[in-house]
């Protein structure tokens, strides 16, 4: 098996009304495609926030290899609020992630990187269209492209397919899987959609109110999935 990217040790998060994650232990390997599934409220987003460093766990720790600062994480959040009048083009939206204290305009390398990402995410034809007029699937591809601009080692998709129709879901996941196989980017895909998780992941982490399960994706049974919805 490939080298470890991150390892969670005895993770637990206490909130005022409940505890989640139940002393979670698991390892994520480089190049792996992991789906995190579970009903609402079992701690999927909490786990992601801990990995991102936005939340300090009550107990346990996340260890990064070689270190957190050497790991580039691209995160695609669950919700975005871009309305029909959102003015930026797809290209300019994706380029927002070239942040930092540099010249206001993009460098030659940044232009090249942007073009490469737009190609990888099949957005080349659409790049000059306003984001406000893009379809749900196109928007998700643009969110993905934006997260990819900084060439992440780890890509986290937080319920990115929740609002998409079945064809758009398949298109997006095929694309992510292809990127995972060609660029070796490690993927964490948070979802309620078991068939989709089964079709594209290597491993699964099922979070439950009283525990968790980790294993190869073929071992995931629909019956294991207590509560929540699973979309076909």
């Amino acid at each position, binding site marked *: 098996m490939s080298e470890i990217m991150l390892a969670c040790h005895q993770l637990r998060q206490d909130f005022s009304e409940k505890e989640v994650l139940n002393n979670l232990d698991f390892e994520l390997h480089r190049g792996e495609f992991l789906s995190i599934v579970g009903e609402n409220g079992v701690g999927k987003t909490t786990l992601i926030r801990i990995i*991102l*460093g936005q939340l300090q766990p009550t107990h346990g720790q996340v260890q990064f290899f070689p270190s957190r600062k050497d790991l580039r*994480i*691209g*995160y*695609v*959040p669950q*919700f*975005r*609020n*871009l309305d029909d*009048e959102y*003015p*930026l*083009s797809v290209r*300019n*939206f994706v380029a*927002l*992630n*070239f*942040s*930092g*204290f*540099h010249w*206001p*305009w993009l460098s030659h390398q940044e232009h090249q990187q942007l073009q490469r990402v737009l190609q990888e995410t099949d957005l080349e034809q659409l790049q*000059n269209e*306003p984001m406000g007029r893009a379809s749900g699937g196109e928007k998700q591809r643009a*969110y993905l492209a*934006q*997260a990819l601009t*900084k060439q992440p080692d780890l890509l986290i998709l937080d319920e990115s397919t929740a609002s998409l129709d079945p064809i758009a879901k398949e298109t997006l996941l095929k694309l992510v899987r292809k990127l995972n196989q060609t660029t070796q980017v490690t993927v964490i895909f948070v979802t309620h959609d078991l068939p989709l998780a089964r079709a594209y992941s290597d491993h699964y982490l099922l979070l439950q109110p009283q525990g968790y399960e980790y294993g190869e994706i073929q071992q995931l049974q629909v019956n294991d999935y207590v509560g929540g919805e699973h979309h076909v």
Partner: protein
Amino acid sequence: MITWGANIMFSFEFMRNAYLASTMIAIVCGFVGVFVVARNMPFLTHTLSEIGFAGAAFGMFVGISPLNGMLLFTIISSVLVGRMSTKAARREDSISAVSGLFIGLGVLFLALSNKSASYATNILFGSVVGISITDVYQMIIMAGIVLIGMLLIYRNLKFDSFDALGAQGQQLATGWLSVAFLVMLALSVSVAAQVVGSLLIFILLTLPAASAKYFVHSVSGMAFLAIGFGLLGVWVGLYLGYLTNLPVSFFIATIEAIIYFGALGYSRYRAH
């Protein structure tokens, strides 16, 4: 005829000063306005201008220039408002409270300073023809500070303003960015109030940028177009004010509103 009129107009120092000051203000407001619109802050901008009114009245009361009084009040309050709350609903309420308090203070300071009502009118509605060359220099310096400051934080501000959730997801430090932007906004409000007055500040800070977003699809494109709309408004407005002796603010407001409604109409036409 127009050239002749313009020649005569520019022979007056106060008109030259007015054009210089308005040009700087249109540039700063067009640029800053793009982010005001993207961050959905027109209400806060309006409140800052009311705070500016109180600051100017305070300035007169304690014997400093109205502009310095404005700067003092708007900068302090922008930092306070920026840190008060990030929850949108509570922020609106907080802004309403702050706004009411400061208008009240403005009225108090005006009464205490024993100045005539025309002072209040100048602050509220602008007095571009009364601007001295010293005021112009001060405005140019402040405009320069705002533009340089905005360019320094441009990329991060752009990300946070046009995709706040994405910026948070990419771990962009946005807290200080927000405060830095509010200080830039406070400076812009204080400068712009000299021309269009506190009550009509949003004419230059929000309307040109709100119009520009219907025509272009990049932040830099919006900034350039918003600056263009702002310049058109102040240049033509000043000229019409000169010709007719009617308030310049009225003409600027009318021109910017026509551009905005034109932009809305254009957007609807394109959607069909």
